[in-house]
């Protein structure tokens, strides 16, 4: 089991997926109704997967912890969704999108998966449009496009600054249709606690009903995890406050390998921390960098108002350092550049931990109306939070934890190392290598859900036709339920003095300091000690009011924080192990003379896949070597 086989089909890159589809095993329509599938998660990956599998005729059970599928955090994606449609006649193609993602990911993603993601990208826009997603249009009625960081073509489709909401509602409405047809059944307000593995195959899940507190057992022929990212490990991030890494950790503990856990994207343009009670950081979409210019004063500690600082005293540091891409460099590069300025005393705002994102020139050139049309809702959002008006004063922004490239390791089938357990969307270690380019997460999640998982899950189920769904009374279910209950009872029995949130905040601080935008060996080792101490304290001094048999939001939080603590250790170990810098993973020991990230391809051109070895034991590292046959591996330069 422990040998890593990515199961990449033979043949030329461009033909692999077509060949896969032409030769995969199928399940006939008659047999599909005998097969049950569990989908956990209803974001831009889970909703389409559940809907599409139900459309094919499988029986699908769908779980999420919110009260409705429509509230999955995909809803908050702002800027857009990529597709290589070459709508602008500007040289885009499947290969170009593939190339941009491989390069953007700093050559740490698997070629075959990335190419396939690019291949299905165009169909996604067709599908979503057909579902009634109101993408932005030109006056002539064709799709409008914008540009995102790290690329030189305009391939991003959008619906104002609410693209995630609109595309998610497309998938959600498809799912609602299947619910009305009786092919999909919704289980909202359920927290998945464990995966049930029988004879080496994923056969079901254990959940907690968040209203009654009851522990439930659900069986199926296959389980698809679409549970999103774990950026909330930093406590403050752009994710929703309930986003978590628990489902992935449950899978990890049951034997699914965890891929590149330390690859976490820090997004450059977020509203900075405003007070110590802050529970969340708000993203200001990358699309703003199309028209906004990023700068700090040239003079250290200059506290004048932005409007009082003349042009020649402003340092447009991205334009200065990266003339070819300017303000549209990829996220990791932009984040580090902002941090560098602030660390050296050039930051602005009360805390000095912010840089300006200025629309003065854009408003002057294009007029307020045009800018409003493009970013109106983002400007309003900014104003509501900070009380300032970005049409008049520049925004202040600072990087924040945002997206996890790491996740459950999957092969070309999107299957984890547990047969029958699939991971899609942000929950898998994905096609983004060490850094994700803007507007490609929705694309990847939707691609997984609409056009890839339906094929690969069918390929798996073809061998399951004669197997009945296991009884939920089988010993594996009973054991998994007992273990889940024991953990909840443990939380309640501690009766200490510190809240789950207070532990989460402290964990976030440790991770942000030592395993955030910049990492080094000393800091990472320190983090391991601090996390271990925090873990001890957590398990001996946690306080939870109430019981397990009712709505208990503190109990929900505690179980998320417990998993975050273990996940933090995994992240730090992975970061320690990878002594090179690549993409978002910046090891201070490995940089060029100009201060840019320096990869060490000879030693680290692999996916790190970690295998669980038992509680508090060091996980075992497996390496999937990455081969680049269709791109030349170069130093990533945006100068």
């Amino acid at each position, binding site marked *: 089991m422990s040998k890593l086989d990515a199961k990449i089909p033979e043949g030329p890159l461009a033909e692999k997926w077509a060949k896969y589809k032409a030769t995969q095993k199928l399940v006939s329509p008659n047999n599909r109704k005998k097969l049950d599938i569990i989908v956990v998660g209803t974001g831009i990956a889970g909703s389409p997967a559940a809907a599409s599998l139900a459309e094919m005729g499988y029986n699908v059970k769908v779980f999420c912890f919110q009260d409705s599928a429509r509230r999955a955090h995909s809803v908050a994606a702002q800027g857009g969704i990529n597709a290589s449609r070459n709508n602008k006649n500007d040289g885009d193609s499947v290969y170009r999108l593939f190339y941009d993602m491989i390069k953007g990911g700093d050559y740490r993603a698997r070629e075959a998966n990335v190419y396939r993601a690019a291949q299905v990208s165009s169909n996604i826009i067709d599908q979503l449009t057909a579902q009634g997603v109101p993408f932005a*249009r030109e006056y002539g009625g064709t799709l409008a496009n914008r540009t995102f960081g790290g690329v030189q073509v305009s391939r991003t489709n959008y619906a104002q600054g609410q693209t995630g909401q609109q595309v998610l509602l497309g998938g959600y409405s*498809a799912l609602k249709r299947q619910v009305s047809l009786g092919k999909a059944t919704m289980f909202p307000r359920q927290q998945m606690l464990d995966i049930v593995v029988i004879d080496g195959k994923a056969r079901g899940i254990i959940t907690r009903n968040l209203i009654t507190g009851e522990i439930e057992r659900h069986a199926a022929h296959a389980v698809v995890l679409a549970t999103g990212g774990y950026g909330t490990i930093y406590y403050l991030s752009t994710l929703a406050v309930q986003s978590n890494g628990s489902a992935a950790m449950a899978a990890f503990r049951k034997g699914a390998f965890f891929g590149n856990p330390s690859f976490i994207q820090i997004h450059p343009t977020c509203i900075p921390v405003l007070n110590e009670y802050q529970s969340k950081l708000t993203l200001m979409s990358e699309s703003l960098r199309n028209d906004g210019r990023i700068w700090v004063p040239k003079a250290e500690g200059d506290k004048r108002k932005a409007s009082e600082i003349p042009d020649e005293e402003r340092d447009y540091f991205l334009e200065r350092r990266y003339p070819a891409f300017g303000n549209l460099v990829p996220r990791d590069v932009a984040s580090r550049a902002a941090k560098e300025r602030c660390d050296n005393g050039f930051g602005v705002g009360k805390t000095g931990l912010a840089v300006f994102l200025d629309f003065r020139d854009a408003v002057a050139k294009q007029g307020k109306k045009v800018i409003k049309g493009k970013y109106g809702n983002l400007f309003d959002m900014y104003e509501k939070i900070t009380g300032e008006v970005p049409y008049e004063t520049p925004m202040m922004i600072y990087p924040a934890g945002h997206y996890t490239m790491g996740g459950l390791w999957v092969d070309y089938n999107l299957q984890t190392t547990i047969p029958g357990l699939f991971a899609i969307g942000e929950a898998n270690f994905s096609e983004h290598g060490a850094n994700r380019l803007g507007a490609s997460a929705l694309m990847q999640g939707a691609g997984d859900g609409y056009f890839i998982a339906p094929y690969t899950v069918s390929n798996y189920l073809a061998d399951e036709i004669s197997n009945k769904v296991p009884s939920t009374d089988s010993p594996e279910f009973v054991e998994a339920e007992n273990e889940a209950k024991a953990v909840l009872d443990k939380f309640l029995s501690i009766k200490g003095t510190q809240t789950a949130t207070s532990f989460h905040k402290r964990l976030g601080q440790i991770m942000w300091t030592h395993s955030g935008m910049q990492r080094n060996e000393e800091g990472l080792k320190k983090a391991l000690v601090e996390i271990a101490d925090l873990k001890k304290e957590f398990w001996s001094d946690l306080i939870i009011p109430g019981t397990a048999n009712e709505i208990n939001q503190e109990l929900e939080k505690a179980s998320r924080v417990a998993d975050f603590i273990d996940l933090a250790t995994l992240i730090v170990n992975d970061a320690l192990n990878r002594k090179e810098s690549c993409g978002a993973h910046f090891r201070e020991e490995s940089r060029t003379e100009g201060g840019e990230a320096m990869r060490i391809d000879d030693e680290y051109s692999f996916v790190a896949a970690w295998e669980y070895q038992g509680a508090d034991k060091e996980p075992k590292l497996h390496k999937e070597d990455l081969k680049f046959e269709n791109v030349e591996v170069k130093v990533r330069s945006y100068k």
Partner: protein
Amino acid sequence: MKIKLNIWKQENGKTKGKFEKYELDGVDAEMSFLEMLDYLNEKLITEGKEPVAYEHDCHEAICGCCSLYINGHPHGPGKETATCQVHMRSFKDGETITVEPWRAKSFPVLKDLMTDRNAFDKLMSAGGFVSIDAGQAPDANANLVGKIDADKAFDAAACIGCGACVAACKNSSATLFVAAKVSQLALLPQGKIEAKRRALNMVAKMDELGFGSCTNTGACEAECPKGIGIDFIAKLNREYLCASFSEAE
């Protein structure tokens, strides 16, 4: 700042609830309303008391989880503002703030400030979709959509499904929510084909689920955090009438 809170506490759907009073010192004007509640809850928990249950997730006015009735208004003070966007700077030092859950027959209280809004999901299942399977879609540019229609459809589609419209309405009607979905899809060529069926089914479902009928008070529009306008209700009425006539034929 120091504030006084008057918060609805209810153990579960079967018990009766009542207002509970709290006093909270050290509130920062820059805190969001939800951060203030977190602050209160952290304090209550460490004092061994029951925290207040309420819903929230994105904190960006887009998921529709947050749903507090603050000082007599769904989502509290401010126009086109969701609960998670309300900041303490909107309140005065020493002010008493009353916080309740949505009150509507179709949204029963689950605990404290949490209600069951599953009825909205049921409404969506009744017709809030276009019947198309994955893989069947034509090219997105095959159906041209004029910018004006696309923008109008977007305005309707911006609804976050929070239920403030129902909570604001004296009849507890879900008409604005249904109107937004029906209008969005009726404005687009890909949604037109099923427009009649959709309008009839969603309206029938609304009655079945116990939502009241619309008497055009406009309270929904005034409280909607996304600025969904009652002109969409006019559009729904047209779609519905037109569908009823052709159905009768």
